[in-house]
């Protein structure tokens, strides 16, 4: 095993694979997270607005179908579906994969945001409305700042889960140099020429390091958010 490790660390080709895979994993994760955040935010807002505005009922129904479908089916299936059934344009596969993860995590994030908003005491909204503020003002200036404290940790966990989930991206096929060549696939490629245990251990440690950094960052943000209320 040590010989294999030595072999990997002495070969610039293998290290290059890891670096490329690592970069691709991060690119896929963060672009998917961005898509998911935007999508999730819009969907959550539509759902919350539907409780107050009857014209939002139909969009809210569509959003409910969206969350139900994408939370109720496996990501791997969705990946195949988007890459082989919908976006069959050659060369578009990696972007279709990113889109898949984005749409999937959007469904989860929207539920996180909605739960965060509805966990704020109903009385806060009532108090805002009773003093003469509009629904929108109350939502943006009073409910949202309180909801963020619940939403941030949940979304952080969602992004961590997403990072690990992207490891299945190579099932739609990947070669060196494309976006679908992620850290897991890099380890897989290297393992043929060295040993499984060494190749995957390095990949595991790399995943762990990123996730751990993320967890620490989350804790710091959370502590800061909690602090602002107790003074």
């Amino acid at each position, binding site marked *: 095993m040590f010989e294999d490790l030595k072999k990997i660390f002495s070969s610039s080709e293998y290290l290059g694979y890891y670096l490329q895979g690592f970069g691709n994993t991060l690119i896929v994760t963060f672009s998917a997270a961005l898509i998911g955040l935007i999508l999730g935010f819009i969907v959550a807002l539509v759902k919350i607005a539907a409780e107050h505005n009857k014209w939002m009922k139909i969009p809210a129904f569509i959003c409910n179908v969206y969350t139900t479908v994408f939370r109720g089916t496996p990501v791997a299936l969705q990946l195949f579906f988007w890459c082989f059934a919908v976006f069959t344009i050659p060369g578009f596969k990696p972007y279709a994969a990113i889109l898949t993860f984005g749409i999937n995590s959007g469904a989860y994030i929207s539920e996180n945001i909605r739960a965060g908003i509805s966990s704020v005491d109903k009385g806060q909204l*009532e*108090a*805002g409305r*009773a*003093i003469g503020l509009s629904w929108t003002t109350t939502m943006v200036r009073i409910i949202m700042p309180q909801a963020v404290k619940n939403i941030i940790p949940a979304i952080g966990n969602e992004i961590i889960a997403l990072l690990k989930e992207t490891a299945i991206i190579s099932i739609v096929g990947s070669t060196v140099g494309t976006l679908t060549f992620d850290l897991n696939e890099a380890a897989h490629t290297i393992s043929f020429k060295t040993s499984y245990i060494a190749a995957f251990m390095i990949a595991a440690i790399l995943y762990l390091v990123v996730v751990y950094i993320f967890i620490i960052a989350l804790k710091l943000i959370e502590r800061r958010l909690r602090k602002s209320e*107790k003074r």
Partner: protein
Amino acid sequence: MKSANEKNVKEYKAKYLNKRTAPIEPFDPEALLEVQHLSKTYGHLTVLNDINEKIYKGEKIAIIGPSGSGKSTFLRCLNVLEDPTDGYVFFEGFNLCDLKVDINVQRRRMGMVFQSFNLFNNMTILKNITFAPVHVQMQELAKLKRLNLKIKIGNLFKKKDCQVPPIPVETNKKKIKADAEENAYRLLKRIGLEEKANVYPSTLSGGQRQRIAIVRALAMNPKVMLFDEPTSALDPEMVGEVLNLIKELADEGMTMVIVTHEMGFAREIATRVLFMDGGNIMEQGSPEKIFGNPENDRLKDFLSKVL
């Protein structure tokens, strides 16, 4: 035949279209708040049943009654926090149930105090009190500035002698903020909590929070104050400080409607007491009459239990 059909249509509308069927009667210009044919139902449960009531300026109205009698719902219907199923609420001639009336503008002139305080948890006490007045005035200022800009652009296309002068703007953002803060400190000083201006609500006691909630409503200079069981969620030793503040307000001539379980308090400050049961106002009159010489059997029964 015609009248029978009309009745059917009325019933159909009330049942399936959820339209208001009560006739709008001319409102009393003397009355500050007028309630006409107010009904509220949740499915089959009738909470309020065709209530007609007028509240005049300077009156202090206490609403008493057993729990589940619709007192709180009635109060919340007065500023349409709870949308009535049928009937209308007039506030100084504005029909609050009409969607054309800007409800937010009307609500600014009626303060509301809740049982559970509902201070904004993400703001300091000072911000709690100043947020709404500042926000409202800023909106008005922005509106005025937009209007002025329109006038100025319009002037570009007009001859010199028929140009319209822009509307003078007397306030600015800083002044609005400073005024609101000065007012807030004046109000805080009145309740003796000015040293708490920069703390968050979670650090205060129940009595302090409720007094701040009252002051927050007062900062909008309301015409009428609605109290929804202001002392029910408080420790017994803190009830006094809140009631004293409400009493002070009453002595200053503020119109108020109070839903309360404190019979002694109701007797002391109210000019009129309403007894509600089963969604109806069963009996009303001066506190001496209600507490000293009740006529309604239900009221007699209720008073014998609580007094």
